[in-house]
């Protein structure tokens, strides 16, 4: 049986992780490669790096990051942030990235999804969507949830699947940062409607929230940042409890 995946997300700027990190045994908590290695040893199934570098050197710093991760890490990883064209994706693929995630560039130019899927295969393309409720609708938001668009999130996800997205990373901006649990109602609606894997994001605060999201929505993976970075949830403990709930996970024995 296919395992449910646990995915820590690392924010990276100018080649350094930016959020506070609480691992006691790290030499350099700002080093994304050492942090990634630590997560893979703990039993993370996959990693997502979100590059928020804003300089014109960005592609070069992303490629360097991806190469150093691919040299040392033996689990799959995704890189996202500022991928606007085929050439960006090509450079990252050749540097060893398993997948890329695209967000606002796809909203501005939906055909980018088709182009990337055709050039590299659907398995390489994750569509990341930041959603927020406006009235009784879920609308796609850009720039970390600050800018609303008029796109209906559910319709946008169905369109992206048609265009060739291989996976959906769905972040609820209403839940993100609250530590009050994932948006299980909307995640279930999306997961029931698509035939590609869905990664839940936004709201993880406790082990029970991971149990709930898998039991209530049947999504394929759950992503979180701060609960892992600050050591509030340890991945081996999380997987042990998921396993007790008959949720299939990959156990790592060191």
């Amino acid at each position: 049986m296919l395992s449910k995946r646990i995915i820590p997300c690392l924010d990276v700027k100018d080649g350094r992780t930016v959020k506070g990190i609480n691992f006691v045994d790290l030499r350099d908590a700002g080093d994304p490669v050492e942090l990634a290695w630590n997560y893979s040893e703990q039993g993370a199934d996959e990693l997502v790096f979100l590059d928020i570098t804003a300089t014109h050197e960005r592609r070069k710093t992303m490629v360097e990051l991806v190469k150093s991760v691919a040299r040392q890490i033996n689990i799959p990883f995704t890189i996202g942030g500022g991928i606007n064209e085929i050439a960006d994706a090509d450079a990252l693929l050749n540097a060893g990235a398993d997948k890329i995630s695209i967000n606002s560039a796809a909203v501005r130019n939906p055909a980018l999804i088709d182009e990337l899927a055709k050039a590299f295969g659907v398995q390489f393309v994750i569509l990341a969507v930041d959603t927020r409720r406006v009235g009784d609708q879920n609308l796609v938001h850009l720039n970390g949830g600050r800018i609303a668009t008029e796109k209906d999130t559910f319709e946008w996800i169905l369109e992206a699947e048609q265009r060739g997205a291989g996976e959906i990373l769905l972040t609820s901006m209403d839940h993100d940062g609250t530590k009050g649990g994932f948006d299980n109602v909307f995640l279930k609606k999306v997961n029931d409607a698509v035939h590609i894997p869905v990664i839940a994001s936004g709201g993880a605060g406790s082990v029970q929230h991971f149990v709930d999201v898998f039991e209530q929505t049947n999504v394929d993976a759950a992503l979180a940042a701060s609960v892992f970075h600050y050591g509030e949830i340890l991945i081996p403990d999380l997987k042990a409890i998921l396993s007790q709930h008959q949720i299939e996970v990959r156990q790592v024995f060191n």
Partner: protein
Amino acid sequence: MIGIIRYGAGNIFSLTAALERLGIAYGMVHSEADFEHFDRFIIPGVGHAGAAMSKLEHSGLVNKIKSLQKPTLGICVGMQLLTAHSEEGDAAMLNIFPIQTKRFADSAEYKVPHTGWNRVNHEIANPLFANIPNGSHFYFVHSYFIEFNPAFTLASTDYSTKFSAAIYKDNFYAVQFHPEKSGRYGEQLLTNFSNI
């Protein structure tokens, strides 16, 4: 030393990085003359099987690969190339294994691509899986699979159907998952292949 067969399909950065971490020597095979420098081979591959086969044909290496007597490991699409035919592009493959590469049926319950960590169950004892417990998880990402066949299936995985996670015939081995992305057991499998 392992020769990695280059025919223009897919990136091999992660594979060579894994071999370097493990201290396994490797080099590149671009032409028929390069084969004699190596004692075993890896056929990598990602993307579209039909397109990969077409690139392999243009490389001029098809007859040489079919005649190989040394241990040879196909990975992912590199595995599918060793079968008789793929539904991806309705293309004839190398036919080293007389079995088929098929597409997973679309289903709400079993999503395609089959993405993530799944259990690999041993069917036949083989040194390729030495020191890897039966039922260990490996990382898969693929929409096409090789049918289960008791004559060739070394290890199987259950998804919407039971399929070949690894196959074996004479000196040819192949795996559907990505050993270079499958944690310690993936690295163990690469080490095992280097010792066969």
